[in-house]
């Protein structure tokens, strides 16, 4: 059925690698104008905002349009635990483990 799957995989590999590689290999870091340098230094904080929201509320459903209450509360409780733990500046491992633990307890109670 999928004899050509390896070609699909290699094609996927190439088109995934190109955007990862081009800027690092082709852009000379000291040739970037200052404004753009500032923009690129902003990227991590902006990326994290976009990676967490709305995805944390749609882990099961995959999109806001299909989000369920179960989905919403799951993200809210896990996210709140992670927020509190990281606000208290716990080690990141414990931030992750505490969120998993709280949600395990939550799922078992329900």
């Amino acid at each position: 059925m999928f004899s050509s799957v390896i070609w699909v995989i290699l094609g996927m590999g190439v088109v995934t690698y190109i955007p990862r590689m081009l800027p690092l290999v082709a852009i000379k870091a000291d040739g970037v104008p200052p404004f753009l340098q500032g923009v690129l230094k902003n990227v991590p904080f902006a990326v994290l905002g976009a990676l967490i929201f709305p995805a944390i509320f749609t882990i099961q459903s995959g999109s806001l349009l299909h989000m369920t209450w179960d989905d919403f509360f799951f993200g809210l409780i896990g996210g709140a635990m992670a927020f509190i733990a990281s606000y208290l500046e716990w080690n990141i491992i414990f931030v992750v483990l505490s969120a998993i633990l709280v949600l395990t307890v939550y799922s078992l109670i329900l």
Partner: protein
Amino acid sequence: MLSYQTPVKKSARIFTDGVKAGIPIAIGYMPIALTFGLIARTTGLTFMDAVGMSVFVYAGASQFMALQMLAAETGAIEIIIATFIVNIRHFLMSASINERTVERSRWKKAAMAFGITDETFSVASLNRDKIEAAFMGGLILMSYGSWVIFSGLGYVVGASLPEVLQKSMSIALYAMFIGLVVPSLKKERKALALFILSAILCSVFSLFIPFGWAIVAATLISSVTIEWAYGRLMKKEGEAHV
């Protein structure tokens, strides 16, 4: 004696730092990779194809999408184009790392580029001022290793974790993202502004466009807008002090 031993020791220590920083990613990838292996098997892929995809592509969301498309007997070209679109967001992350890396060797840069994911990018950016190739090496060893090994294990075992644990562990990467960013949000107003604006924009955009583009658009618009606004603010404050 000390002076000639230091460089080697130093880069070994930085590598170890990368390995340690990769632990939460390794934990977070586990349930996702196990599920990937399992679904790849039920979709009808061979073990070689399933593990091969994790080895050569190494990008979670696009791999799940490819499984769906293969199951629906979508053509190869469509799958490859869709993969490109989902993964183009890494372009921004690579450009941002390029701005911060101290690595000068193009070969090493090309090698570390392979390991750029949402997760390795976030960890590297928020853990290091200057991103060293040795740090990326340790980080990628952990995250890539976890992704490939658990993809294979999910396929072989043909099952994921117990249902409750599988579900609760799906929060792991989000908890990690929160754990990485909150300390900076506490300290820096600018970081907070970027984070909130981008979160709102991405939530709105995700209603209309695929998530890969929503992330790219939200990140670009907020990074540019906030940079411009802060430039103006600084200028005004500067004038006020004169």
